[in-house]
């Protein structure tokens, strides 16, 4: 396992500055845009591009806390189900006569509770890996959503609610602005606060951080709660865009989200990663989808491409690391 020494200031080195994964992402991003522009004459159009962001930004909200979760060396595969459950609860409560604002608050509360339960179980029963706990809660949350709404759709929200997913501020989609604000908050939280440094510390060495006085359990619970909370934020935007909700919404979101985080250079072994890479990879996958959609690529081919992208983005750093290890041993 790679150990990283946490220092306050790093020496600036031109070579290592440009050898970072983030520059690779920038390169991929530019390549995708060139490719898309060649595919379709309609691609390079500011309005189209801004509109296109609205199609993929809903799940981007979960990507931010998921980066925290993976940096801690954990994983959360229940987020898709959390989206479904909180959306379903909101829709049912609104249709039962609650004011929309209150229903939205409860939606956020449900999401945060789901996340808190994950975090609580993972810290209380340390023998269980996050994979198995969130696998179980994934089934439970989705199951409860089915119990509540069976296989019906629920909708009929007030007009102003659709502003969340479809509205503009000037020419910029409201969703993009909301995402930008969240991204800045989470970026600062990860890189500029003690909390963020502790998340890295836990990812590097759980036991050592516990002995150096980091409240590991508390931080884990907070991070998982944030993941649940942001899943319910996604539920708000997704429901607003679709106009109604069903228990089977957001199926497979966990995969997309994990793919984005891992492509963004966050190591699945924990302790490594940066917010800027994660955000770049959201736009890479989003624009790739949009561009391939413009030339009528089928959803199945997209599935394959995203799966491959996930595998390769994990494999490349692994191979580099293995080579270095071999060189060291030799």
């Amino acid at each position: 396992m790679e150990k990283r020494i946490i220092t306050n200031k790093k020496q600036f080195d031109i070579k290592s500055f440009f050898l970072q994964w983030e520059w690779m992402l920038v390169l991929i991003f530019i390549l995708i845009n060139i490719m898309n522009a060649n595919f379709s004459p309609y691609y390079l159009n500011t309005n189209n591009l801004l509109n296109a962001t609205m199609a993929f930004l809903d799940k981007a909200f979960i990507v931010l806390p998921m980066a925290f979760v993976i940096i801690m060396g954990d994983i959360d595969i229940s987020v898709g189900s959390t989206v479904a459950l909180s959306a379903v609860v909101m829709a049912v409560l609104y249709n039962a006569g609650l004011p929309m604002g209150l229903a939205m608050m409860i939606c956020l509360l449900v999401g945060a509770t789901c996340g808190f339960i994950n975090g609580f179980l993972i810290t209380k029963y340390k023998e269980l890996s996050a994979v198995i706990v969130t696998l179980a809660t994934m089934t439970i949350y989705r199951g409860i959503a089915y119990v509540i709404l069976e296989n019906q759709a629920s909708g009929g929200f007030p007009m102003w609610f659709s502003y969340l997913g479809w509205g503009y501020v000037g020419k910029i989609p409201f969703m993009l602005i909301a995402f930008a604000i969240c991204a800045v908050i989470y970026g600062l939280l990860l890189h500029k606060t003690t909390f963020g440094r502790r998340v890295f510390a836990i990812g590097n060495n759980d036991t050592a951080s516990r002995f150096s006085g980091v409240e590991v359990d508390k931080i884990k619970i907070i991070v998982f709660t944030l993941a649940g909370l942001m899943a319910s934020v996604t539920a708000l935007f997704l429901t607003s865009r679709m106009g109604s909700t069903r228990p089977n919404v957001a199926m497979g979101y966990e995969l997309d989200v994990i793919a984005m985080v891992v492509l963004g250079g966050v190591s699945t072994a924990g302790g490594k990663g940066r917010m800027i890479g994660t955000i770049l990879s959201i736009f890479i996958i989003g624009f790739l989808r949009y561009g391939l959609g413009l030339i009528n690529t089928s959803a199945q081919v997209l599935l394959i491409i995203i799966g491959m992208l996930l595998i390769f983005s994990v494999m490349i750093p692994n191979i580099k690391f293995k080579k270095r290890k071999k060189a060291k041993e030799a």
Partner: protein
Amino acid sequence: MLKRNIQNMMKAENISKFRELGLLVFIIILTVAVQIRNPRFLTVSNLTNMITNTAILSILAVGMMLVIITRGIDLSIGATLALSGMISALTVSANPDMHPILVILIGILVGTVCGLIVGVLVGKAGILPIIASLGMMNVFRGLTFMVSGGSWVSAHQMPDSFQSISTSKVMGINTLVFIAIVIYIIFYYFINHTRTGRQIYAVGSNPDSAKISGINIDKILIMVYGIMGSLAGLSGVLWVSKFASAQGDTAMGYELNVIAACVLGGVSIAGGSGKISGIILGSLLLGILHNALPLLLISPFWQQAIQGFIILGAVLINVLVKRNAERKNLVRRNI
């Protein structure tokens, strides 16, 4: 010191027996409860039906147990099952005269290739099993849609010889159940009485010492995922033959049921432990639940939630029993 170690080992043995006994008792209580509510439960036709339905799940659970013993997890098996089922269904609908055994072999071949790919990614490239199998799940699922062009292969396109795989009988037992029994016998021998089988446990309980004692970990990992894939391929053919239709979204999310069967059967997610007898009981419990809930007139929408709670309950009880045993061991050491 040695004596105490042996005592501890015996203690651990007792606990695992207790677990299985507990599971058995739970199954019996459940059976009696369901029987009281609905007397149609314990009839020959319903029981045969239930066991036939559980056969595929229990075949997959064998492979998943091996994977989990090595501290891994394979989320791609639902997609592998769909892909091999689809390819064999397409082959058999193009050549109706093909012998069913040949079709099964094709399915196994497709599945093995899929499994080996995941195995190489996990073993050679060192990708976390959950990420590797999650990625390949997408790829296999996409390929399933692509080879079929998005359409279904339905019953009238399949020859009777193919559909009869799941309805015929071998030695008075339904073929599906027969295949499952054969697989259980083979794997019981394999993991308990062969060197390679024991090495799987060694890799799972302590990878570092396994490596030092000269076990080729990469090879074992690739083999385990290969076995998982081939069993998924076999199940794919059986599945398509049983339901007489191959679809792009066949067995979507089925991997969760399989993992649940393993976890219920006492296979530890931390790796290194798991028994064939345990997963038989685990699969049986899930089978009974699937069969009993409709008989008890419980809405099908409750099924998923109930299943989730049972998985969570099973892993939590597992942890608590283990903690209790460790605490007792500590107390004994003080004396």
